């Protein structure tokens, strides 16, 4: 996953958003990072991983992606928007049904139970 290469990112862009325990496994939360709404997901299929993408769903024009259901489609880990069910790749932010309406993806990591997002 891309966030593993986090050393390449300048240290000061990383923001602590919450504890890993604050996110129910296999769901998301929304974090306010530098004025921006970022959806942060906690995927747990044996080992815990976190992902971060923009929270604003361009299809429904509502800030709701953190409240979608997460899962896998083939090899991709995705969230389904709760409004019109478009799927977004959690690693890249790509909208599977309509790539023009993709969202930003952000690096995220867990350190000592703390979730960090780089924005």
């Amino acid at each position, binding site marked *: 996953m891309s966030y593993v290469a986090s050393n390449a990112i300048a240290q000061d862009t990383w923001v602590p*958003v*919450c504890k890993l325990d*604050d*996110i*129910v*496994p*296999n*769901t998301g*939360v*929304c*974090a*306010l990072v530098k004025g921006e*709404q970022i959806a*942060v997901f906690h*995927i747990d*299929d044996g080992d815990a991983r976190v992902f971060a993408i923009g929270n*604003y769903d361009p299809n*429904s*024009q*509502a*800030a*709701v992606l953190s*409240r*979608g*259901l*997460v*899962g*896998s*489609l*083939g090899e991709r*880990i*995705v969230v*389904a928007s*709760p*409004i019109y*069910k478009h*799927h977004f790749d959690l690693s890249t932010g790509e909208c599977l049904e309509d790539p023009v309406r993709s969202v930003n993806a952000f690096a995220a990591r867990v350190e000592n139970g703390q979730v960090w997002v780089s924005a």
Partner: protein
Amino acid sequence: MTQSTLVVNGLDVVVIGHGMVGHKFLECVLADVAQSAPDGLDVRVTVLCEEPRPAYDRVHLSEFFAGKSAGELSLVSEGFFARDDIRERVRLVLNAQAVSIDRAARTVSVSNGETLAYDKLVIATGSSPFVPSIAGNDRTDCFVYRTIEDLEAMRLRGASAKSGVVVGGGLLGLECAKALRDLGLDTHVVEFAPRLMAVQVDEDGGRMLRGKIESLGVTVHTHKNTTAIVDGESAANRMVFADGTHLEVDMIVFSAGIRPRDELARACGLEVGARGGIVIDDACRTSDPDIYAIGECALWQGQIFGLVAPGYDMARIVAKTIAGATSAEAASFEGADMSTKLKLMGVDVASIGDAHGKTPGSRSYRFADERREVYKKIVVSGCGKHLLGAVMVGDAAEYGTLLQMVLNRIELPEAPEFLILPQADGKAKPALGVEALPEGAQICSCNNVSKAQICAAVRDGATSLGAMKAATCAGASCGGCVPLVTQIMKSEMQRQGMAVNNHLCEHFPYSRQALYHLVRVENIKTFGDLLAKHGRGLGCDVCKPAVGGILASCWNEFVLKKEHASLQDSNDYYLANIQRDGTYSVVPRMPGGEVTPEGLIAVGMVAKKYGLYTKITGGQRVDLFGARVEQLPFIWEELIDAGFESGHAYGKAVRTVKSCVGSTWCRYGVGDSVGLAIDVENRYKGLRAPHKIKFGVSGCTRECAEAQGKDIGIIATERGWNLYVCGNGGMKPRHAELLAADLDRATLIRYIDRFLMFYVRTADRLQRTSVWRDNLEGGLDYLIDVVVHDKLGLATELEAEMQLVVDTYECEWQKAVTDPQTRRRFRHFVNSDEGDQHVAFVEERGQIRPATPEERQQIPVRAQHETLAEIPVVVEAV
């Protein structure tokens, strides 16, 4: 050919009789004319109907006594005759009897004084009941069984009668006996022949049938020749029999056969048969080439066809001939197969082809099981290669297969006895390979659908039974051919290389039904466990909510419990309904739509305090819109304090029970619909299911609660409650069907328990009861067998499963606000107490509505709440 169409342009057609066959003719001729437009004929049709109402379903007449109304039996869709395209072509004259036909002038005189000119005349007068010439057959307690008026008269007399007899033990006679039994009478059947249904059933089958009918409380008297009806001593009438015995009953219904109504034809000199019936040729033409006769009044090659399917065939043929003069398709009537399958008082009876083995050299195989009361016989040709006929009593599962074998002369398997023997270990029943059927084989005789048409529909994408019915009408009427239609559909799908695959999604190679079974049998309690044992990947937005629902249906644990929370769709995850702008709506439960003034005020106060948009729902409750995630727990707390609980408007679950005010207030009500609605809603509230479930309870047949548009509809009767199931409003409205009538409350609840749990157990994901029902192979009869007769032996289990759900009910809102782990999730930001800056409202008609994205652009983000709507935004700190 083209010349002749010009001559007949502007064709006046008169139809005498608006029964099932007359109406079929009307439908067909209109369809055929529409198809030949725009250069088609200008056909104008006048239909004379002597009854006060348009065509209705006489085949299902006995359901009138089981609770169906005259309107429900109608064959004419509402507003049909008022439609513009129909009105300009068709005139239906009710209460109008044709008095005479003047063939020279080509006119028909009508009882209302009109004289109608015709170019083509169609006689569809049907038949009248035959009343044997017995002294006293005109007594006031004597009835016949043919029209709705006859039934109304029977019902009137039945209300004060204690006993009744049907004269005639044939097919119609037994239908009629069911009607008397439904009226609550001590019921008798008197038959002249030595057995019941002598035409269709042989001696052994007749004996089995008699046993079954008698065990249902009907007394059968065979070999009885009634000589007179006189005053009785213990009842109003006495039937005197030739053998010196007698029977006393209050009312008598004659159902001893039919006589074709050929009197008009006879009077105008058309050829009629020696024993009645208007003689027709293969084109259904009478001896006058401009006059046709169709249905039970017509005599073809010396035969009268007393079934509806041949009548429909004749209607189609005449419609084609009249409308499609240019059509090269020369339609001709080729006789009809008189095989029948029916359910008489819950007993399956079927007769195919040469049921009595009259063919010289034929041999038969017989199987009788006196414990289960099943009798089956097949008649095989002398050479042993072909099936000639069959009789089945008590179980007619093989009807479709055997009929096709007879009709298509399919070669018999090596040991034909296995066609009717119960399956022994390891020995599979020889099925009719549907591949063996010729393309032209008629599969659905009610709607004349061939194998080729079914296959074509599959290629056009009809790959479920429901879609097949919609595309071809196959199986949509009596349903007898549904197993065969399904087989052909699946075989064609396989031939086309279409995956016959009902897997839930890529993560589970199982149908929803199979997963439900696994969860139950293996006692699986979490999604993780199920995925590890039977799935792959992480799951997705298809399988997670589906499994979440299954787990809730089975074990009814709190849906936001840690193991289950991540399975829930956003609506279930926040126990509210997400709206287009990401805010939520909140619906408190108001069982039966009953609410106190205090309750209503409390709801209003909450709406006012939190600035919510308020609207009354279709399910008789109040919906509060525009709540933000962080407000939800506070709103719920206030609603809970006022005595409300979650309305489950967000779940694939039991939602509401709509009711009318019922007998408590309404001067027409016969049952306490509100009281029942409240009890029913409190029993089933929150039950998770494959899709949402709505109920309705009406206090009388006026049906103000529109219960027949609901998954479960309950209507009060004088004697209890009628239970209707599988109705739907919404995208594809469907009337609910009567499952059982005149139930007491305890039985009603038991049947609903079984019905709901059977649906929960077997439906596909997101399949409403209406679609589930359309795809159920055995149709309504099967559902009645399972729920009422407990044919699968599941009743106790289903009731216990429901009781567990009822006993473990908890208000999810209450649980969510009191559980700190759950409650802390109700914030928009995990790291801030701010709200979602994208949410903004504007005022409209004195309430809020979401601002459009354009409106949002115009307002500085920070000031949105304050400037747009003068409505308080209350967010209390967590």
